[in-house]
């Protein structure tokens, strides 16, 4: 464990800019207390900003893109553009939890997505504790704490005049060893301050979530099966405009479609993020479509998250970041959908 002063952190980030593409959060509206934060490329002489809660964009957007060339054929033009070495500041525990799904999809299974694996290797994640939360935040409902415990290279915990720095990987350790002048070993007293701060925020978030009466994590898979035919899916679908925003902003959603286009002598294969809320998502040649209705597609989104991934990865594919709630023009709230299913499943039992 190390300690770094606020000004030293700025200098550290600036030093990193010399050999990495450094992304750091910035406040969208710095004068507003509840401002959103967004990632931007850190340029020289701009201070890095510590975000109190997660950014608007999902972490996945650094590793796959909405529209991306993934292959050229048949020439030698192969991998998509080589990615530069990247450091990302401002990653939160929910981002890391959600990103486990992306890693599972692209790094495991039948075969590895080489370009994703390379980007992952090239990227250093500098996480941080949450010191506040958004109204939609509900990580605790999924047993995810608002401070990262794993999955980061370095993690920053704000103290009163600087940051405690926890090392989470070999890459993180090497980064500190390459920039020793900014860091000092942490003192026991500083580690206790971190504990007190973490517990304080966790307690506040717990009080925020208590009245929401969210469904317990270990009940969701049974809810998906028992609630397959409840009218929740129909009721909540009514305001869905099929924009796909919930999928694109989600750090666990990973669906994509491959598309080809001619480009001179070498053709391009493109990968586009796709949304299971789109009418043609599951359509096959000849016109058959197992997901014809918005009702079926809304349910499909939930059964993927709360049934499929519990079976296949042992965890639900929701990190409680609330991005899908903020983005939805139809005000479809993932928490409310689950609660409604639970209510109707319970009612059917009595």
């Amino acid at each position, binding site marked *: 464990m190390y300690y770094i002063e606020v000004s030293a952190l700025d200098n550290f980030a600036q030093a990193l800019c010399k050999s990495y593409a450094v992304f750091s959060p910035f406040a969208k509206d710095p004068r507003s207390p509840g401002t959103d934060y967004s990632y931007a490329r850190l340029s020289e002489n701009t201070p890095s900003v510590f975000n109190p809660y997660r950014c608007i964009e999902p972490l996945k957007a650094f590793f796959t893109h909405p529209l991306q060339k993934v292959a050229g*054929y048949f020439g030698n033009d192969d*991998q998509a553009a080589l990615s530069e070495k990247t450091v990302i500041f401002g990653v939160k525990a929910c981002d890391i939890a959600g990103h486990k799904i992306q890693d599972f999809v692209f790094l495991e299974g*039948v075969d590895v997505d080489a370009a994703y*694996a390379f980007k992952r290797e090239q990227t250093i994640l500098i996480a941080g504790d949450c010191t506040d939360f958004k109204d939609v935040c509900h990580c605790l409902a999924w047993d995810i704490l608002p401070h990262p415990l794993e999955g980061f290279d370095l993690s920053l915990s704000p103290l009163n005049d600087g940051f405690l720095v926890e090392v989470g990987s070999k890459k993180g350790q090497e980064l500190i060893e390459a920039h020793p002048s900014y860091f000092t070993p942490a003192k026991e007293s500083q580690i206790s301050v971190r504990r007190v701060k973490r517990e304080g925020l966790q307690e506040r978030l717990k009080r925020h979530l208590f009245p929401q009466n969210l469904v317990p994590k270990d009940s969701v898979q049974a809810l998906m099966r028992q609630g397959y035919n409840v009218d929740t899916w129909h009721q909540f679908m009514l305001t869905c405009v099929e924009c796909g925003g919930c999928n694109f902003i989600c750090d666990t959603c990973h669906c994509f479609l491959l598309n080809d286009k*001619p480009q001179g002598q070498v053709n391009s294969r493109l990968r586009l993020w796709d949304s299971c809320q789109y009418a043609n998502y599951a359509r096959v*040649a000849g016109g058959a479509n197992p997901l014809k209705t918005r009702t079926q597609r809304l349910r499909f989104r939930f059964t993927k998250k709360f049934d499929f991934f519990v079976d*296949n990865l042992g965890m639900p594919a929701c990190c409680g970041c609330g991005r899908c709630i903020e983005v939805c023009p139809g005000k479809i709230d993932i928490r409310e959908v689950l609660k409604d299913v639970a209510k109707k499943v319970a009612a059917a039992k009595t």
Partner: protein
Amino acid sequence: MSPHKNIYKPIEATIENIIEETPTIKTFVIKPREHFEFRTGQFIELTLPGAGEAPFTPSSDPNIKDTIDVTIMNAGRVTSMLHACSSPTTVGIRGPYGKGYPLDTFEGKDIVIVGGGVGLAPLRSLLFALFSRMDRYNKVVLRYGARTSKDMVYKHLLPDWAKKDKVDVVTTVDVGDPSWNGNVGLVTTILKDMPVDLKNAVVIVCGPPVMMKFVTLKLLDLGFAPKDIYLSMEKNMSCGLGKCGHCRIGRFYACKDGPVFTYEELKDIPEIWD
């Protein structure tokens, strides 16, 4: 750079020959320019350069290593462009994907194969694979139905198969016509009284979803066990590798966990026939 190959990049291949099976179905004989092997029942992604790709299960003998046959119905965007091609045409292939038919578990058994329309295509590959080592299987019983006699694929092969030792072939058409003097009726009407030992038989079914549904119900009715009924699930498979998400069926992906599933695996999943 990463040690892994690019999973999205097709290898180059040539359509060497095109055989017209029916007015809407053609068999494309494809020669890959790199070594390419598949197990029967596995599928490939076939790319028409610059236009797109679509999943198909080869219809040829997996023991043939230098070419692959793919029998394709003109049904969608990519397939209609493929039907407009003449040989030779350069195409791309990726794969093979999926698990294929578990031939080992078929050994010593009566093997019933039920095909509907162009669904006989992957089953032809299976038949060739079985015929190449018939000593390992008790018998092969083929039941094939098409909409009309004009929609039957591999018409020239069916009589040869029927003449083989330990092979029993019955065909039917949904709608008869003057040129047809065989059975008329849905494929479900030729499933009773099959010369098989129910306790030691497996059934492999491939055809349109509605046909697979009613064939499965009929087979259950006849006393076949759900674990002995193998179904080819048609889904929108884009990547073929369990990454793109499209072909999910319950807790499975059709591409990597299938595309062949036993009914036992699928029976508790809602809406599998849609």
